[in-house]
């Protein structure tokens, strides 16, 4: 038995090699190459893009993963991390007052965030020394300061800074890593050695100290450690990962990752369609040979093994070429990526190559399975007369199972169910629609005349083939239209989230007495907005006290422990969207508008009464509206907006934001330093926070993601065009037979061209109708349920789809068929004989 199988494998290999030399299997090979190359490119580029973006986010954080805690972090976690092969860095932060003294004994106080670090350099990214002060390494007697402290505290290289019980020299000025949420720490930073921080008696039992354990390493190490930490998470820990530096950004990027995966899947499905059509083409071509072999006495098992070996060879050989092509493409693209991604982290290509290779194998088996089964079951009597082919439902299940495996290779398990369901539903619907269209064609054929009738009859001659063509082409056009729609929406959303004039500078802590002075300094600032605010804490909902220990959610706990900024405004700002509004207030209480997320967190409903502790006063408000806030927009946004009333005297301060022009190359001469200096002199205590660097980083990330999305979209588009070419091949032989017949009976070139091209235009138009119908339905569903926008019916979409379908097919028809349309009957006959 084993000997037999080995011999069959050798025979199959011989046949495969022979066929390969003669260019047989070409379209199957091309389709598999497209599939595995696409998957390799998409996976490798996607992984490179993701890792580069992660590295960028990690550089912003100074690490890949950070454990933040209000209590000291047990040293065992650091040891454990080091055992996992991770690099570690400990730091302790405390907000304290710094006292600067210069040569003339002039003193200057400033609230600072003091950070004690175990190693001077961050684990990710580089320390950025500033040239304002001469730069030296940290010693036990020296510190580094953030540049804006130099103007705020009016210090120079000879100044001495007192922190706790010790005086320090200045070792230099350093730009710290930029945090994604700048409002979280607005005090300027000072760095010192961690051991010194422990000695200067600033850390006491009641101090608000933040402990951090930063970690860096490869993805696997980080994931392993993160899993361990999440399983042993202490309630006072906050875990930050470079993968989700901020919730909003994370959501946008998640959509981008999903798009990347979907585009890879689309490319594979598109290639799959090509295999489906091509395998049918080969099946028709090989049917007689199969029947001949059966007539010669080849058993079912022999046929199965011989053709399975050959198909496996095709899959193996083409996948190998595919991954090589894909990998070479990624190497070619890499230098261009470097322009978009800094730093560019080239991902390890092994996973992409393996996934690409197995996708190639699977895509061939998935989509060629039906043809393969039909082929090996060809009845020997087929050699003498045609017999109808019986399809068994079990083979559809096998194809479906293979498709499931293929999709699971490419997507997260969570998304599979929906995607597979979607594919099945759309395929069924497309199939039903194609049956309907076919019936329409038959109806039209009955009432048409002349060349148009011939064109229609050529199309309807093989109903099964037309159905497969319509479903495949419809599916390809549908995927393309849907991708166009989603991509456009994704890009538009990103652009809208950070428009050009987005405020990028904040001024905080403006007391009412300082308001006019600050306004005066900021007179020329563009797009300036102000908001009066108070600091307060939510303490009760409907008279029920909110206790930290009752909260299971960490965020809820943090929000209850800290005072929040509460805006005091009569109206909700225009950049917020009111999602629910109380029609008639049921009490005399002043109104409060609550942010959607907070309302959900504390189960706050319209009409609820909220009690705040504002500077010792307990004040009640009724919830009048719930708002949606885009935190990533850098507008002035608040969890709560309370209504100003004359009866309630609130300790107001002001918050401003405005737009500053692009950051100048020389940060010392930048407008922000000048403003900081002016504010420090004129209005002490007022803080200026410049977030231009962070915004640039976010914009960079968005640009990178947009680039990746567009590039992969283009790749899928190219793969789809390949499929459309294959779609015309399947009916090539029968089409040429028709033309030969028409030529033989004396049809002129003009008529044959008209008939030939009409077939293509008609097929393209019908596929366009199918694609438009499904794209329209999907876009309506997406608008309604995902984007929550008003669904619109788009006649333009229909028109575009039909025109694109017709034009594409006409073009493909012209390219692939033109030479045959021009051929003499003798040459056409020769072609048919040799195929």
């Amino acid at each position: 038995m084993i000997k037999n199988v080995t011999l069959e494998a050798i025979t199959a290999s011989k046949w495969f090699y022979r066929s390969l030399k003669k260019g047989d299997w070409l379209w199957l090979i091309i389709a598999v190459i497209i599939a595995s190359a696409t998957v390799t490119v998409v996976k490798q580029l996607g992984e490179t893009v993701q890792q580069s973006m992660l590295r960028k986010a990690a550089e912003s954080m100074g690490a890949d993963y950070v454990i933040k805690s209000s209590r000291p972090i047990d040293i065992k976690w650091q040891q454990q991390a080091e055992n996992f092969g991770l690099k570690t860095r400990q730091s302790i932060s405390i907000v304290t007052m710094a006292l600067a003294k210069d040569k003339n004994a002039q003193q200057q106080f400033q609230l600072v965030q003091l950070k004690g670090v175990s190693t001077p350099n961050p684990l990710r990214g580089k320390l950025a020394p500033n040239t304002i002060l001469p730069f030296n390494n940290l010693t036990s007697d020296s510190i580094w300061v953030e540049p804006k402290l130099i103007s705020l505290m009016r210090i120079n290289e000879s100044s001495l800074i007192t922190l706790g019980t010790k005086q320090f020299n200045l070792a230099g000025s350093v730009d710290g890593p930029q945090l994604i949420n700048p409002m979280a720490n607005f005090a300027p930073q000072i760095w010192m050695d961690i051991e010194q921080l422990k000695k200067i008696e600033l850390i006491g039992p009641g101090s608000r100290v933040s402990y951090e354990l930063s970690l860096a390493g490869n993805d696997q190490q980080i994931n392993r450690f993160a899993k361990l930490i999440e399983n042993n998470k202490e309630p006072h820990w906050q875990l930050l990962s470079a993968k989700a530096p901020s919730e909003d950004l994370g959501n946008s990027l998640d959509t981008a990752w999903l798009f990347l995966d979907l585009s890879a899947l689309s490319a594979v499905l598109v290639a799959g369609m090509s295999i489906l059509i091509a395998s049918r083409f080969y099946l028709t071509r090989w049917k007689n040979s199969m029947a001949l072999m059966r007539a010669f006495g080849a058993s079912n098992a022999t046929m199965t093994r011989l053709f399975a070996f050959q198909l496996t060879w095709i899959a193996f050989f083409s996948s190998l070429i595919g991954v090589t092509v894909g990998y070479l493409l990624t190497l070619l693209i890499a230098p261009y990526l470097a322009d978009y991604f800094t730093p560019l982290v080239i991902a390890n290509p092994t996973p992409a190559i393996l996934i690409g290779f197995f996708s190639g194998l699977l895509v061939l088996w998935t989509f060629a399975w039906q043809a393969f089964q039909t082929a090996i079951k060809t009845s020997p009597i087929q050699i003498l007369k045609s017999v109808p082919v019986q399809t068994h439902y079990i083979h559809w299940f096998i194809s479906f199972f293979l498709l499931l495996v293929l999709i699971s290779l490419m997507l997260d398990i969570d998304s599979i169910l929906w995607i597979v369901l979607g594919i099945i539903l759309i395929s069924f619907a497309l199939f039903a629609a194609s049956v309907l269209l076919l019936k329409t064609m038959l109806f039209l054929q009955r009432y048409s005349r002349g060349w148009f009738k011939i064109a229609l009859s050529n199309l309807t001659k093989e109903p099964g083939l037309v159905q497969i063509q319509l479903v495949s082409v419809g599916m390809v056009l549908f995927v393309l239209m849907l991708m166009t729609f989603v991509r456009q929406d994704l890009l538009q959303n990103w652009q809208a989230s950070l428009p050009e004039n987005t405020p990028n500078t904040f001024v905080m802590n403006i007391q009412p007495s300082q308001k006019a002075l600050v306004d005066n300094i900021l007179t020329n600032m563009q797009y300036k907005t102000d908001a009066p605010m108070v600091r307060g804490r939510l303490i009760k909902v409907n008279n029920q006290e909110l206790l930290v220990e009752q909260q299971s959610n960490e965020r809820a706990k943090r929000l209850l422990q800290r005072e929040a900024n509460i805006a005091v405004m009569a109206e909700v700002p225009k950049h917020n969207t009111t999602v629910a509004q109380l029609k008639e207030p049921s009490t005399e209480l002043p109104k409060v508008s609550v942010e959607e997320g907070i309302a959900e967190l504390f189960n706050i409903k319209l009409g609820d009464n909220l009690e705040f502790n504002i500077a010792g006063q307990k004040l009640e408000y009724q919830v009048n509206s719930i708002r949606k806030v885009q935190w990533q927009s850098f507008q002035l946004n608040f969890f709560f907006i309370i209504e100003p009333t004359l009866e309630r005297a609130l300790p107001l301060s002001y918050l401003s934001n405005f737009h500053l022009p692009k950051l100048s190359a020389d940060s010392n001469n930048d407008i922000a330093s000048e403003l900081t200096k002016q504010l420090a002199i004129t209005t002490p205590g007022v803080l200026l926070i410049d977030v231009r660097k962070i915004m640039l980083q976010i914009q960079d990330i968005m640009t990178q993601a947009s680039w990746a999305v567009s590039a992969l979209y283009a790749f899928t588009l190219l793969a789809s065009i390949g499929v459309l070419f294959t779609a015309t091949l399947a009916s090539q032989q029968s089409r040429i037979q028709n033309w030969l017949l028409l030529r033989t009976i004396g049809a002129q070139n003009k008529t044959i061209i008209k008939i030939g091209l009409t077939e293509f235009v008609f097929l393209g138009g019908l596929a366009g109708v199918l694609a438009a119908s499904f794209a329209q339905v999907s876009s309506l569903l997406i608008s309604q349920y995902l984007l929550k926008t008003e669904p619109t019916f788009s006649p333009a979409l229909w028109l575009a789809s039909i025109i694109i379908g017709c034009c594409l097919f006409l073009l493909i028809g012209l390219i692939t068929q033109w030479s045959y349309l021009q051929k003499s009957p003798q040459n056409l006959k020769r072609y048919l004989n040799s195929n």
Partner: protein
Amino acid sequence: MNPTNIIELQNVHYQIPSDNSILDIIKACDLRVQPDETIAIVGRSGSGKSTLLSIMAGLETSTSGQVTLLGQALNDCSEDQRAQIRAQQVGFIFQNFQLMPSMTALENILMPLELFQIEDAEQKALKALEQVGLANRANHRPAELSGGEQQRVAIARAFVTEPKVLFADEPTGNLDEETAEQIQSLLLELNKTLSTTLILVTHDNHFAQRCQRVYQLINGHLVEKTETAQ
């Protein structure tokens, strides 16, 4: 059943459903074929000649009656068992040659040998090509060969496995008179030299007369026309 018979048909019927009725294609056919015999089956188009041939070769099963090929009752065999009988002892020739267009003449002949892992395949195929006078056309594809040459390749392919019985369905139907004559001679010569039983279906009365026995299918019944031809 006589064990010396290569083929034996006993009261064979073949019916197919048609609209609301049943069509009788073959009715109560009886036939016994001895080793090395040459048998021709003639009849009008659509009379069921090819169907009868395919029943004898085990490509199709009769509706009723007994078909024995090389001592095996085909009606009791599974598709794979019938395939095994064909693989070991049956050859085929068709009107439209049924050559694989993408394969050369040599590769077409090699196909059955390789299919069943027969040793020295290439030498045997080359010898078969030589026997049909096409040694110099080994590397030509069917499209580069004339109709007669294509049928010679098909004959070589059929004989290369040294079958005990050869079924030929209109082997000269697509050829001109002169070429048909050559092919007929070749077939009969190979039948003699290789001791292969030849059963053929033809429209060509001249060819049928060159066979030892001629049967005619009339309204589904197999009627012997002559006892001896040569």
